[in-house]
């Protein structure tokens, strides 16, 4: 066990991506300290997301990352980390009830095909063959057979557990206040519990990344955005696909355990208090239930056992900021994931570890530059 506050890399944020980066760094023999402001590992978006391992519906800039992860990292992740992370690759159905919905789904399918993803439209009959519990109102769907889902809490904790075993030092209950330069390089992380020092500083702290980076003159245009989910009691296995709708009324899946996890909204998400503990609001769970039952009437007697909420670090252009900061050598960004971070967490962790090791990245990440935000005029 190290006794100093110095390591090759200091990671701010012990979420799925911070823990994944720590894991891949320790595999390369690089020493890591991970600082987490919460008392719990993965207490932000990493334990508060729908668990989708989805390529379909991604922005064209993000699609190559998602496809690389699904081809190369997700299938072997449970073996790699030594525990079952409940990865289930049984496809994604995006449902439509009207001609207007099908038009949206066709557009989405065309855009995914342009990026090289195998996705196609299916008619009502084929959609029901894939998932027999659909409402009769469903007239068609977008179908991506290689999409899937996994358990985000297990993925995060599996990366943490494996990185910790490899010697990464995780400290919870430590709040990073600012990053300081030494001789022109980002080197010190000032916290409420002393100063930590590294050759590379990774900022993977969700929305807090914006506040911390502002001290160095960077301002990433993102806002906290509330997301809410309902979880049911365990039910017999009904379907294994990830589900969504053309209108994004809800999304979700049935977990390995048997409970359904459904995310949705009330329409007032942009008007929430945007600080502190994310709170489930009385209006939303009810709205999610109605949305789900509109597509899956068979679930009407299934019981909700809990609800929860989380913050999304929503970026102005809905794709993340990943990469080095030219004006602060040594600083690496991994933030603004806009609610799609979990599905690409293994690949982003891999890329961040490559950056810190001074290696060429496996995939081109120039589209995620922090410097891409220009004024409108």
């Amino acid at each position, binding site marked *: 066990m190290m006794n100093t506050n110095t390591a090759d890399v200091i990671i701010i944020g012990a979420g799925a991506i911070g823990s994944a980066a720590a894991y891949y760094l320790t595999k390369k023999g690089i020493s890591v300290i991970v600082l987490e402001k919460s008392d719990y590992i993965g207490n932000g978006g990493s*334990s508060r997301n729908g668990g989708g391992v989805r390529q379909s519906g991604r922005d064209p800039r993000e699609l190559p990352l998602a496809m690389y992860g699904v081809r190369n990292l997700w299938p072997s992740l449970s073996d790699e980390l030594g525990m079952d992370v409940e990865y289930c690759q049984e496809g994604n159905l995006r449902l439509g009830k009207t001609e207007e919905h099908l038009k949206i789904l066709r557009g989405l399918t065309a855009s995914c095909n342009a990026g090289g993803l195998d996705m196609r439209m299916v008619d009502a009959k084929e959609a029901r063959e894939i998932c027999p519990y659909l409402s009769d109102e469903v007239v068609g769907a977008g179908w991506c057979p290689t999409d899937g889902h996994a358990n985000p809490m297990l993925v995060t904790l599996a990366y943490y557990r494996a990185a910790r075993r490899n010697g990464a030092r995780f400290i919870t*209950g430590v709040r990073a206040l600012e990053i300081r330069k030494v001789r022109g390089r980002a080197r010190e992380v000032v916290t409420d519990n002393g100063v930590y020092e590294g050759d590379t500083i990774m900022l993977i702290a969700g929305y807090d990344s914006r506040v911390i980076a502002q001290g160095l003159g960077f301002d990433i245009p993102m806002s906290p955005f509330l997301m809410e989910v309902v979880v*049911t009691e365990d039910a017999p296995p009904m379907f294994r696909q990830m589900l969504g709708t053309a209108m994004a009324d809800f999304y979700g899946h049935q977990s390995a*355990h048997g409970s359904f996890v459904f995310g949705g909204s009330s329409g007032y998400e942009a008007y929430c208090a945007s600080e502190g503990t994310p709170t489930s609001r009385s209006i939303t*769970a009810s709205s999610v*239930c109605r949305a789900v039952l509109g597509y899956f009437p068979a679930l009407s007697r299934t*019981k909700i056992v*809990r609800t929860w909420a989380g913050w999304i670090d929503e970026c102005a252009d809905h794709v993340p900021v990943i990469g080095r900061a030219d004006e602060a050598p040594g600083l690496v960004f991994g933030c603004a994931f806009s609610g799609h971070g979990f599905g690409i967490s293994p690949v982003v962790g891999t890329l961040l570890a490559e950056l810190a090791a001074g290696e060429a990245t496996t995939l081109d990440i120039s589209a995620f530059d922090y410097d891409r935000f220009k004024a409108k005029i």
Partner: protein
Amino acid sequence: MSGVCDRARDLGVFQSASDDGRIICRCEEITKGEIRRAVHDGMFNLHEVRRFLRCGMGLCQGQTCGKLVRAIIARELNISAAELDDATARAPMRPLEMEIFGREAPGI
């Protein structure tokens, strides 16, 4: 545990105990041994153990086993159970059917 917690803390070698097979979380059938092993795997509080093992995530949402799990974690870490936060209570307080939860007004 509120405050700074270094997860590199050495808990020593895991020692099996004769009552490791005892079921603590009845809803999810999680044993005492599984909870003790999770602590040795770095899960140092009720939140992480819940997310790791599902204990307290079933029908009763931990109302039955919450205190027991907390005590087992505290003992493994050699701290007082009072130092560990409780799990977060979440709505609804009793399981509620979706068609009822989704009802906005009588008759709808």
